[in-house]
């Protein structure tokens, strides 16, 4: 249950290794990396700047991890989310989940991403040839979160 908000890049391989070697009863390790695309909504994007709400961000991500832990039989979770200015192929977010079995690890990892997308206070601003623009929230993200409701 770790949450990091940082400007610097992260070493996904090292983070995954640390989590997976923490216990010898782990059978499944799922991970997700979100990275910056060079195109969005039909426009070339040269850089992206991530703003967040310090204080609330950490709370929101810890709450998402707690919900995942309460819901699935998992051992540990890690969320790293970057802020500041990024360029295409830069890593934005890493989520890692360890469990005895793969079904729980997959579900918890996807759940964390779906909740992060709709309830963690981050906002993206893109630089395009037509100027800067704020990324609009997607209806599909609300729908992805809604799937997890009981």
């Amino acid at each position: 249950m770790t949450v990091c908000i940082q400007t610097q890049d992260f070493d996904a391989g090292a983070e995954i290794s640390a989590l997976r070697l923490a216990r010898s009863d782990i059978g499944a390790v799922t991970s997700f990396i979100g990275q910056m695309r060079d195109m969005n909504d039909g426009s070339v994007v040269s850089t992206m700047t991530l703003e967040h709400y310090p204080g609330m961000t950490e709370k929101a991500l810890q709450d998402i991890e707690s919900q995942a832990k309460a819901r699935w039989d998992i051992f540990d979770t890690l969320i790293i989310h970057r802020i500041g200015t990024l360029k295409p192929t830069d890593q934005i977010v890493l989520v890692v989940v360890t469990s005895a079995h793969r079904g729980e690890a997959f579900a918890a990892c996807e759940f964390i991403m779906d909740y992060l997308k709709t309830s963690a206070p981050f906002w993206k601003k893109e630089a395009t040839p037509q100027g800067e623009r704020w990324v609009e929230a997607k209806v599909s993200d609300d729908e992805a979160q809604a799937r997890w409701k009981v």
Partner: protein
Amino acid sequence: MKLLYFASLREGLGVESEEVKLPATSVKGLMATLAARGGVWQEQFDGCKQIRAAVNQVLVADGAPIQADDEVAFFPPVTGG
């Protein structure tokens, strides 16, 4: 009461945060009070734009109560991840 504004809403208002003296109310009530300031405030808080609210750093619905010493943040739907 401490008010915070983020992302496009912060840019639209030209204000990042402010301290205000207001009685206990609800999210909806506070938004009406802010819209009544007119100009960019009315434009942002007239109900046409999707605005999310957090009270003491927890996402809440429009009907949520607000106490006089709460930290209240307004922002557009989030786009992280």
